[in-house]
């Protein structure tokens, strides 16, 4: 938490303070808060602000706890396909290299995989293949991944869906908090992928 007892920020200005290049001063770049927000978000955290004019401004930053460098106990249970209960996955991704990498990793975990490269092919693939989870690349050549998700959710509301995103297309993400939906930010590790698969089913 960072707070001051200064002049405060007027309510009409408040929605714009994290936008790049926004400034109320003559000098300065308007990048300070934008950079701060980016840093917090990239580290998986949230930043919020409260202000009352003439009295104070309060910024609150929530950051996830750092991963311990100390190794986990060696007898940790390893994930196994039986344990995460995912047997079939549909991948919707136009990058054939990435789809092939995902396929070989999932197949080595005894998961059956079906790949389509266009969003328009997703619904019929799900119908034909009957997966436990659909993995959707957010940026597809023919439509946004969120639209693909809406189509799937309309027909199969309980279907587990995982979005994978690059750094450039985070603005396209649907609202967090959706049920049975997970997000993977590239690059992600095999362990993160397998954990996420287990979480969304």
């Amino acid at each position, binding site marked *: 938490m960072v707070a001051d007892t200064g002049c405060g920020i007027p309510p009409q200005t408040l929605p714009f303070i994290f936008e790049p290049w926004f400034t109320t001063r003559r000098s300065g770049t308007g990048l300070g808060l934008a950079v701060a927000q980016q840093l917090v978000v*990239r580290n998986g955290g949230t930043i919020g602000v409260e202000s009352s004019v003439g009295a104070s401004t309060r910024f609150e930053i929530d950051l996830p706890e750092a991963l311990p*460098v*100390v*190794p*986990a*106990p*060696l007898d*940790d249970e*390893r994930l196994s396909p039986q344990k995460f209960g995912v047997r079939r996955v549909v991948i919707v991704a*136009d*990058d*054939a*290299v*990435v*789809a*092939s*990498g*995902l*396929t*070989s*990793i999932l197949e080595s975990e005894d998961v059956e995989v079906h790949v389509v490269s266009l969003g328009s092919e997703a619904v019929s693939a799900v119908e034909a293949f009957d997966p436990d989870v659909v993995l959707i690349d957010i940026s597809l050549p023919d439509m946004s991944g969120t639209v693909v998700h809406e189509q799937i959710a309309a027909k199969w509301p309980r279907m587990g869906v995982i979005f994978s995103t*690059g*750094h*450039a297309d985070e603005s396209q993400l649907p609202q967090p908090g959706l049920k049975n939906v997970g997000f993977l930010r*590239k*690059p*992600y*590790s*095999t*362990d993160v992928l397998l954990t996420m698969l287990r979480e969304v089913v």
Partner: protein
Amino acid sequence: MTLDSQLIVLLDDDVMVTEGLAAGLEREGRTLITCNDVESAELVVERFHPSHIVADIRISGPFGYEGLDFIRYAKRHAPESRVILISGDAAEALQLEAAERGAVAFLQKPFAVQELDAMLDLISSSALSAVGENRVIRMPLLDEILTSESLRPFFQPVVTLDGTGRCFGYESLARFHSDSPLRNPEMLFQYAARKHRVADLELACMTATLKAGAPLTERGLLFMNIHPDAFNSGPKLPEILVLQAKRSGVSLDRVVLEITEQGSMRETPIVLNTVDRLREIGVRFAFDDVGVAYSHLTLMGKICPSFLKISQDFGTGFETDSTKRKIVMNIQSLARDFNCDLILEGIEDASTAQAAADLGIPLGQGFFFSRPADAASFINIEHTRN
């Protein structure tokens, strides 16, 4: 080995990309090594001089241009390697810069793997690959290694030289059981050093040693190597020792930390506090490989080691080499003056063992007694003897 045998390094921070490329490029006569961080790729390039390197421009997120820097690194350490850059961003300036630095081609993502496949065959390299077999080798990331079950030490007995051959203790030796080149402990530690995380690797090895070596402590002391850098980590080292020893049921007065000669040790308050704290919890110290490199003799009075170890460089066949013999006898007199027990490493035959016993060296270690092996094999030996 055929003329077109290729050793290809694939560098991308996205495991899905390296796995996908490897799956699509696999063929007879090709060895593919996938790397997901710059440090492991550097290590592989330096060691194996690949024929081709396929590298993403951005390895650590949207702000880095490590791929561009990597071209220079490759040109310096493996000039015969041909570098192909891949990137989602195909700005002309980037392509020009890549060419300027010596990349032979540029592929914009997403691309079909067949395109890269054909390109690799077109771009020949004078590099002669020593491993012209059809294999995909994945370089694991350090964080995966640190939490891996495959980080399991070997042990080598330290034996009394009084003629009884009684086992006095076991030295643990870090081993990463894997089909990647990091199964070589030297490469494993070099990789950690490039990531400036030797101390983390040491602590993970220590945890694995206490777990695997716990049954051995009923028969003797447990000697664990420790890089001098680990002492700089302050209270973390003793804390982890206490925690892991408790978890594994090892009493800390059975533990000897062998301070290695792989780095220099400075007399800083943090280091001295760590030493004091370790002594409080019952741990003893040894100086490993005395005289080989840095030598921590200036810290002799502060650390008060219980043991000095003579490296196999001096130990093996010392009885027939007058230089080695003089060095061994000098370290012996040092041990006597400072009241340390001496351990001679590198005893490979009976005559060296006899000569060491004749000099009055109390403890020895080497292939003559036993090769390093996993803890279970020593426990089994005892069982069969009984």
